[in-house]
């Protein structure tokens, strides 16, 4: 297997992009990544997208997006693993380049969520449709049940959940691509509308349109191209039961731990070697579970870690310097690639006001459903 690097990244602004269609959003992100990389062609492409069929009535977006990017007849396919679709697309690109089958592969992600469909229903299709969603549970509802179990067993508080949102908004405030660039306080979170008790509106990531793309090449080719490469030193994925109720421990998202264990082993690293991370804070409790499973905090101490400043921009392990899903926005299929774009920017020293000093090793964690799918990637500066 060849070693691989990311040579270019690009993303659109995240938000309510009323004047841009799904195809234009993707194409904008893809062109930025191609220009950043300095490549004159691509050999194939994978696009992560959770549900273009339900959101905008369009399937077969592999063909459509290759067409509008002007790269036909290269192979182009959509990859779907709910909110982990983007990072799973990246894995296909990594495998294709590592195997030697192709040299320049684009991994993208896109979601157009604001065109009017019932997003609560669509997101719930990532749960067990017949035995969870059928009874009325929503995605915020599933994470709310994890949160309540975590609070009951470990004494995690609403203030600790709120601390995650406050930190991520403070970071997103410094990100020009973020959907909600405003600072908030714990009171903003705790006084906001209840969505699924104990999760308030400001515990939840927003409904977002957006796209992101990355160009994957063999490491040996990276020196000859314009873009500053970042090496991929681990890619890992794990699955878990589709229904939350089937898990033996309702306070743990174990697919994060399983994927992380494989990724740390592949990279030959321990959690204390990670300089910064982008994690899947679809809800504030999810970031707390991620701390515990990635080894940033002990089991049950994730809430205290959030409050302690450990993961703030100036903390020991800055987490979600981009603003995370909470402030930057969560166009579900694009999120896994947007996390990669942030880590690449940080490891290149291009993150502007959000730059983490001396960042050498960055981690991304992206998951689908209530943790039925999870990926972990580790990247190293060159």
């Amino acid at each position: 297997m060849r070693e691989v690097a990311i040579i270019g990244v690009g993303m659109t602004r995240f938000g309510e992009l009323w004047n841009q269609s799904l195809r234009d959003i993707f194409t904008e992100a893809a062109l930025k990544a191609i220009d950043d990389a300095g490549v004159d062609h691509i050999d194939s492409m994978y696009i992560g997208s959770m549900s273009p069929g339900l959101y905008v009535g369009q399937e077969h977006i592999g063909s459509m997006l290759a067409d509008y990017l002007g790269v036909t007849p290269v192979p182009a396919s959509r990859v779907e693993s709910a909110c982990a679709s983007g990072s799973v697309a990246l894995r296909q690109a990594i495998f294709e380049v590592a195997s030697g089958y192709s040299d320049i592969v684009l991994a993208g992600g896109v979601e157009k969520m604001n065109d009017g469909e019932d997003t609560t229903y669509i997101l719930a299709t990532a749960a067990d449709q017949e035995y969870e969603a059928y009874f009325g549970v929503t995605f915020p509802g599933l994470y709310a049940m994890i949160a309540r179990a975590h609070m009951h067993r470990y004494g995690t508080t609403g203030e600790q959940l709120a601390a995650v949102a406050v930190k991520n908004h403070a970071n997103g405030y410094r990100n020009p691509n973020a959907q909600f660039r405003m600072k908030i306080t714990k009171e903003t979170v705790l006084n906001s509308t209840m969505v699924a008790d104990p999760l308030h509106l400001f515990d939840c990531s927003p409904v977002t349109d957006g796209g992101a793309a990355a160009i994957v090449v063999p490491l040996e080719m990276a020196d000859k191209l314009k873009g500053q490469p970042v090496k991929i030193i681990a890619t890992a994925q794990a699955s878990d039961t589709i229904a939350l109720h089937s898990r033996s421990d309702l306070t743990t998202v174990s697919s994060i731990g399983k994927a992380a264990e494989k990724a740390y082993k592949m990279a030959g690293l321990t959690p204390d070697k990670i300089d910064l991370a982008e994690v899947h804070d679809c809800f504030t409790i999810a970031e707390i579970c991620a701390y515990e499973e990635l080894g940033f905090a002990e089991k049950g101490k994730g809430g205290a870690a959030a409050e302690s400043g450990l993961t703030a921009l100036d903390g020991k392990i800055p987490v979600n310097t981009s603003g995370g899903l909470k402030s930057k926005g969560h166009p579900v299929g694009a999120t896994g690639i947007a996390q990669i774009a942030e880590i690449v920017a940080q490891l290149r020293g291009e993150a502007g006001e959000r730059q983490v000093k001396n960042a050498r090793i960055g981690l991304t964690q992206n998951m689908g459903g209530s943790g039925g799918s999870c990926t972990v990637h580790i990247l190293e500066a060159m």
Partner: protein
Amino acid sequence: MKSIVPRYTREIPQRARLEGAKCLKCGHIEFPPRLVCSKCRHREFETISLQKTGTLLTYTIIYTPAETFSMQSPFAVGIVELDDGVRLTTQIVDVPLDELKIGKRVEMIFRLVQKEGHAGILEYGYKAVLTN
């Protein structure tokens, strides 16, 4: 969403009668039934009726439901562990929402769950009520 009646009717043994599948090798109970045991990978099962009583493991109160449930909110949904060890997701009904607590005892009852599609097909299933 267009209504498809068979997709509802084939779940009736589970949703209406709470039938599970007990592995003939390791005794693990699957709900809903599966073709392969999730514990030992055995493929032979017997159909059994699940226990109707259990304990509330966690819950939430949904204030922002999908459109199908918009007339019901706010409503409680929880994860219940039945006394035979089977876990399921269910609404908890007929209770003031502030009386819910992890560890409360519940009983499963048969109720209307939702109306699907433009035809308004009545779809039934289980819900939980508190027993203490």
